[in-house]
């Protein structure tokens, strides 16, 4: 396996955990992309403001 790829995967594991990374790897193995897969992309990118904790 390419060294940079391995580093990237490990960094993703550190951020998201093993389960999420497995799902990413499975995504790359996908052979057929459906309309539902495409529309689900919108769930990945949330409104920027939603990541910022509200000040009290």
């Amino acid at each position, binding site marked *: 396996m390419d060294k940079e790829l391995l580093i*990237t995967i490990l960094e993703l*594991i550190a951020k998201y955990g093993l389960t999420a990374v497995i799902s990413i790897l499975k995504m790359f193995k996908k052979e057929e992309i459906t309309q539902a897969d495409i529309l689900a992309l919108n769930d990945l990118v949330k409104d920027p403001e939603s990541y*910022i904790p509200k000040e009290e």
Partner: protein
Amino acid sequence: MKNIFKFLLVVPIITMLLIGCSGFLSNTYKTMYTVGIAYDAGMRSIGDLYSKGKLTKDQLDQVLAIASKVKKAYSTGVATLSAYETVDSSENQDKLKVAIDELTKLWGDLKSLLILFIPSIDSLELEKISSNIDGLIIKANYAIYKGVI
């Protein structure tokens, strides 16, 4: 934490290496998926940094301004990809290429900004993440050994 940000730099590499020779639709989907994952990770980290006081309001506003553009371009990308999946025409393909070019450009701008703010992260967090990675390497190896991946 710095290690986490490093993947923002190399995320496109994972796309290049894993995409292989699949079709335009599949390649575009996978590119958008990795950009989506990287955006989400980057913005979560920005939220963490801001809540810990390691990011100024001005820096935050800079990130939010570009992130809003990325979000808009991403939605456009999803809509054009959806249209292309429905009707595989050269017109839809051209529209999709334009949308992806715009998204890639804006993502590059956001990524540069995120990386610029890395020096504000302290070494203690870096060590914590490094030790987490060590533990996760063992789990990842086990998963590969068991054939989960």
